[in-house]
């Protein structure tokens, strides 16, 4: 199988505090991995380590076909939905940011870029919002816009850090279904961090459970519900 990312014994420390210890895993092309864990389990830190935003103390992460950072990885940061309704930007401007990574000075949005922006907006069902102000949109619409920003450069790997935490349950389900269709129809590899255990189990192909170390990495279907309780995960959500 074709590994996009191979992590070997990755250890990350913030000052005196070891946040991740000896984490090893492979991410293969076409995977849809749900990353879960209790608060402080190191989920966001692992994503940041993959993106090169935090230094790795020990171990290494190897990339194949995707460059660390700007080439081939689309990223949706945690709490990305803008709460400021006055932020003066139209949807097309926000999505255009996703194309700046590969550009040289002076970075300009070209006619082709505009077409790429329209194409991704259409794909995500929000072309009609192209000229709307971001602050005027609902939480679910804003999250789709930010997903479009992550996807407009046609990345092989999408990293989504708690993308549904600010959304209501109905919009959350729609979002998970959308990510599943992107993974299945386009072959885009997805790593999605979430507290929403039930949706992760339902939609992802694989699950990764962190508790400052890797405690489970395997098929979502085979993931043991009782195991999640022992790890302090949000078990009640499984009964929703």
């Amino acid at each position: 199988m074709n590994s996009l990312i191979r992590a070997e014994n990755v250890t990350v420390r913030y000052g005196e505090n070891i946040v991740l210890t000896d984490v090893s895993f492979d991410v293969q092309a076409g995977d849809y991995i749900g990353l879960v864990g209790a608060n402080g389990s190191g989920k966001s830190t692992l994503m940041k380590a993959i993106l090169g935003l935090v230094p790795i103390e020990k171990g290494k992460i190897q990339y194949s076909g995707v460059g660390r950072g700007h080439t081939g990885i689309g990223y949706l940061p945690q709490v990305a939905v803008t709460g400021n309704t006055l932020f003066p930007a139209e949807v097309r401007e926000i999505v255009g940011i996703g194309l700046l990574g590969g550009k040289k000075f002076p970075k300009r949005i070209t006619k082709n870029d505009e077409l790429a922006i329209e194409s991704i907006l259409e794909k995500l069902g929000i072309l009609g919002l192209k000229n709307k102000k971001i602050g005027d949109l609902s939480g679910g619409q804003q999250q789709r816009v930010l997903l479009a920003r992550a996807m407009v450069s046609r990345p092989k790997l999408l990293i989504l850090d708690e993308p549904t935490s600010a959304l209501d349950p109905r919009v959350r389900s729609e979002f998970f279904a959308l990510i599943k269709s992107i993974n299945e129809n386009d072959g885009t590899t997805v790593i999605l961090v979430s507290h929403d255990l039930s949706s992760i189990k339902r939609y992802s192909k694989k699950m990764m459970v962190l508790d400052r170390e890797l405690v489970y990495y395997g098929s979502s279907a085979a993931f043991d519900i009782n195991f999640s309780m022992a790890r302090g995960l949000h078990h009640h959500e499984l009964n929703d």
Partner: protein
Amino acid sequence: MNSTINLIQEALSYGFMQRALIVGVLIGLSSAMLGIFLVLKKFSMIGDGLAHVSFATVAIALFLGASPLFVSIPIVTVSSILIMNLNEKAGIHGDAAIGLVSSFSVALGVLISSVSGGFNVDLFSYLFGSILAIQKTDLWLSVILAIGVIFTVIFYYNDLFAITHDEAFSSVIGIPTKRRNYLIATLTSVTIVLGIRVVGTMLISSMIIFPTVSALQISKNFKSTIIIAAIISVFSVVVGLLGSYVLNLPSGAAIVMINGIILGIMMLYKGIVQR
């Protein structure tokens, strides 16, 4: 009406007024163009903090008998970077970081002026601005600054827009966020130092905040916000300066009042349109 026109013509014939208008317009333009990045990144009060730092540096310069401009620009620039680092590295929130640097600087300025025999006219003129004090050096530095700000905003527009919207995402796609933030901080510092000649340390932050907040009431996208803010700022400076001459009012306060009236009109307009 005729007497007002005569007074304006008279004002425009004076060298000090011509210098004040040119410097004021250029500072207004620069501060409005930088304002959007500071206001939206919740660093609005950095102008206020840096103005207080420049008060201390003016006190130091007058105490040493040196040129205030050349003492202020480097120290205020270093302070702006210090404020950003306090925010980033020491985990001190932006407003607290500004408060710390700002109050320490005022205390330093007061101590130095006390040691050197109390507040003198020169130092006082920096508190509320004095267009009579504007020299040719200020004029040339303002021209260089305005060119620097305009070129920075044009050439780094997309990077600055990206950082303002989402710094974490910008880092991931390879935008040098720290360097761009320092660039904005440096240009803001020079704008503040030059701007206190016109409106004074007490009021300079208004030139950064008011035009952007006014523009935000009616603008729909990022570019139009910058353009509207720049127009409002330049208009306020021209009307404020000429109005202050005609009505015999302090120029800095007049500029801020015009800005305040425009903000009121914009908010009213937005309220009516949204109904």
